[in-house]
């Protein structure tokens, strides 16, 4: 079982396959750097919300959600470092704004 699992949910049509590969590689790299875990201990999955099925603030959403689950849990300063690293990487690769991204790092 992987130590870290990421479930990434995006609005359909916003992020293509090539970019997903880069995002997945980025998640694996930064997780290894922040948490000192091997690449084989990180899994990444992607799912789309069909157009017209995702809303934020009562209007159609352009937000992506990255939900991390970390076996054994994290101390809060490390959690914040991990979430910030995910935000930075995701915005750089996808071009989204900080307001189009929600990141969580949950104890599992």
């Amino acid at each position: 079982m992987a130590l870290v699992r990421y479930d990434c949910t995006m609005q359909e049509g916003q992020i293509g396959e090539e970019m997903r590969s880069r995002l997945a590689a980025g998640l694996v790299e930064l997780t290894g750097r922040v948490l000192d875990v091997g690449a084989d201990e990180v899994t990444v999955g992607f799912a789309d919300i069909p157009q017209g099925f995702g809303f934020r603030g009562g209007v159609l959403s352009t937000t992506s959600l990255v939900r991390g689950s970390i076996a054994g849990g994290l101390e809060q300063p490390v959690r914040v470092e991990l979430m910030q690293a995910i935000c930075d990487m995701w915005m750089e690769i996808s071009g989204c704004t900080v307001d189009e991204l929600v990141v969580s790092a949950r104890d599992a």
Partner: protein
Amino acid sequence: MPYYRCVVPEGSVAFEQRAAVAKAFTDVHCGSTGAPRSFVHVVFDETPDARFAEPYFVDGGNRAGRSEEVKAELLSDLLGAFASITGVEESQLGGRITEGPASWTMEGGMVLPEPGEETEEWYAHDGVAAGG
């Protein structure tokens, strides 16, 4: 957060109804909790979920820290709005609100504050205030 996932049968809820439910949920949640509107995420999922007995189910995830009374009223109002807009009978509709620590989530580049500990800076954040 909050994140409301509405499990519905395939093709059962039209776009106009989904949009109306999303707006109603945002109104209900913000009216109950005072949270900024852009906090509220509403997603419709036509994938059957065997965990729920009812064919229509509102699966909510909120920040921990609110009273049981607030949570019960919130869920009741959400389900009432869903039923009113979609016409779904209440016997076919279920719901729950689960909670997690606010500190586990970063939104708008900021770690979420605990309920009742929101700062002016948080409310003033452009993305939050704009409902984006």
